[in-house]
């Protein structure tokens, strides 16, 4: 064969050799020791996160703007979870304007040759708006949310050709809107308000949640709510039991079933339901609202309720995540 016409097939680049794809093989490729940060967050060890962040910063382990921002995001989230709002505000104040060029991929072409756009994790923007509300500066937070609500649809328009992008930003818009729904006192009240027709109530909720299809469990929970509002607690209990059979970890059904039992004068049974859930599925059952309900029931059932509440409180201290609000034991 002629050397000039020799067949030449470029060898396919293997996945592991492809420098671009190796960026997404594991979490640690995205940011320094991200897997460990994520693990701490999953386990609810929020006390450990500010410590890890401080250490990474002081040892110069964070090399890219991406690293810094991700660590900042975890730190802000962690401090907020621990209700250390002064520290959160200090952290947030250390950030430049989110839209400055420091926080854009194209400023760092050496690291990300083909990438452009904002490096800021969206949760930072959201937390930046939410924190003032959580720490009592309602007006400032609301203003920031309005700005955020302007920002998101703009992004949606930009990305209209990319399905996945639309999915991302729609989710984010959602987040902003729903926060609003909760922030505006009137709509919050409206939702918890007794409309004659709780099906209407949940429909309103669901329309707002933009859910088109109801999971079986959710439909049953709606039915139970209808019975509950009509004071037919026996039927409500039956519906909730169906939910629990379908999903033994449905803590909403478990909690609400216990409440219905109480309205049926079966205080001992309601206590048993809640205690049993804490024993059986502690990870989902250990929830501040459920604990508040259980402790209210203890106060009613026992003259010397502080003993039993203390036992519960001690167990919670051993098992609960760092951000668990211990005031829920009403001690």
């Amino acid at each position: 064969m002629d050397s000039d016409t020799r067949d030449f097939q470029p060898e396919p680049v293997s996945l592991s050799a492809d420098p671009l794809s190796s960026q997404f093989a594991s979490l640690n490729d995205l940011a320094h020791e991200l897997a460990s940060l994520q693990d701490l967050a999953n386990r609810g060890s929020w006390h450990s996160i500010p410590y890890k962040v401080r250490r990474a910063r002081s040892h110069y382990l964070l090399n890219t703007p991406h690293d810094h921002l991700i660590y900042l995001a975890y730190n802000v989230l962690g401090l907020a979870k621990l209700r250390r709002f002064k520290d959160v505000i200090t952290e947030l104040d250390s950030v430049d304007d989110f839209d400055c060029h420091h926080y854009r991929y194209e400023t760092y072409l050496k690291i990300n040759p083909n990438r452009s756009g904002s490096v800021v994790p969206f949760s930072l923007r959201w937390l930046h708006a939410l924190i003032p509300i959580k720490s009592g500066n309602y007006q400032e937070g609301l203003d920031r949310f309005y700005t955020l609500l302007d920002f998101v649809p703009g992004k949606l328009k930009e990305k209209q050709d990319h399905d996945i992008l639309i999915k991302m930003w729609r989710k984010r818009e959602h987040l902003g809107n729903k926060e609003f729904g909760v922030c505006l006192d009137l709509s919050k009240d409206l939702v918890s308000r007794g409309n004659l027709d709780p099906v209407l109530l949940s429909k309103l909720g669901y329309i707002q949640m933009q859910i088109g299809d109801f999971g079986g469990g959710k439909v049953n929970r709606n039915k139970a709510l209808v019975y509950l509002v009509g004071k037919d607690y026996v039927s409500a209990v039956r519906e909730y039991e169906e939910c629990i059979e379908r999903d033994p970890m449905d803590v909403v059904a478990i909690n609400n079933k216990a409440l219905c039992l109480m309205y049926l004068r079966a205080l001992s049974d309601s206590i048993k339901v809640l205690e049993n859930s804490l024993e059986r599925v502690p990870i989902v059952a250990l929830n501040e609202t459920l604990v508040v309900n259980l402790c209210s029931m203890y106060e009613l059932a026992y003259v010397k309720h502080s003993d039993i509440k203390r036992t519960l409180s001690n167990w919670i201290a051993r098992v609960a995540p760092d951000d668990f609000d211990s005031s829920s034991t009403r001690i």
Partner: protein
Amino acid sequence: MSTTQGTHSLAFRVMRLCRPSFHVEAPLRVDASDLIVGEDIFDDPIAASRLPPLIDAHVTKLTDTSDLTYRTRFLLQHPSDSFGLTGLLVLPQAFGAIYLGETFCSYISINNSSNFEVRDVTIKAEIQTERQRILLLDTSKSPVESIRAGGRYDFIVEHDVKELGAHTLVCTAVYNDGDGDRKYLPQFFKFIVANPLSVRTKVRVVKETTYLEACIENHTKTNLYMDQVEFEPAQHWSANIVKADEHKSEKDSLSREIFKPPVLIRSGGGIHNYLYQLRSSSNGSAQSNILGKLQITWRTNLGEPGRLQTQQILGTPVTHKEIELCVMEVPSVINLDKPFSVHLNLKNHTERELGPFEVWLSQNDSLDEKAVMINGLQTMELPQLKAFGANDFHLNLIATKLGVQKITGITVFDKSEKKTHVPLPDLEIFVDLD
């Protein structure tokens, strides 16, 4: 029988059992992709295809009880999780305020915290108000045989609150304790009932229609959902509510079919107005003032109802005029000190002959000279009017002051019935220089 001296084996525990409420709280939960990467990373097509599987591997739904993480406390499983409305219900955390028209409901538990069984327990629960004592529960006909050591006897009581002011829930138990002594245990739980609403009404009569405007003000600490506000007219009256026209765009929207905008009155001073059109169906001149009353039903959390009705609402007495005096024409130019003529008409609205009449300008109390006076004879004579008849006449007047002046006090006097009719309302004129 010993009373409260010495310790009791039994004790009452009481918890107000109004309906539970939804727990609503903006959660600190994020979507994983919003936390671990920059927001625009998905613009990069490689990232867009490689990242989601990586993220999904770390955001699996909690299906396994051996998955010992609290990730659902910080990661969103579904966008709607950010709403903060999980559906979890919370028991009432405090006694709260009680309002007239609501139903007071309470869980009462009688606990035996001693080490001995108690026997023959007669339990009574009553509500004591300023005016009366209402029995809610009485087990004296069939006493509770025994409550073991550490045991309980529970009951739930309900009472429709119909009085304002101080109320006391009185719980009493009479029992045989471990030593065989007959003991008497009274316990008192006080609460105050306040007024949830105030209703202000205004009545206006326009021609033959009476309009009733009712303003409901909310004095409670929570928003009130107005379930039903209905006006019940008195005998001989009919009523219908007057509402503003809906905006055209609202009529067509899909959400309108699913979600009817509620009438929600804000807490602590919010108001809502209702307008009713009332028509009297009786033609007789003997009419009572009573228009009817408002029935109001509201709801608070999870449908907790309250009901009130107002007292009888009174309208303004409708007076049928027997004689009507109207101004037909006033000259457009009136000059100072120059006489001018006002054209008037007197109408008899009754079915009998009235009159003859005298017309004059009544004197006001001050000693000032009136700005406008009759020019000539101060009293004008008018003949009788037959049933439903009318008579035109002219009053010759003169103005003594410049500028905007009033013709006041034109009075009609019925000489035969010796009755003075209500004077004509003031008429404004402008007096110019010649």
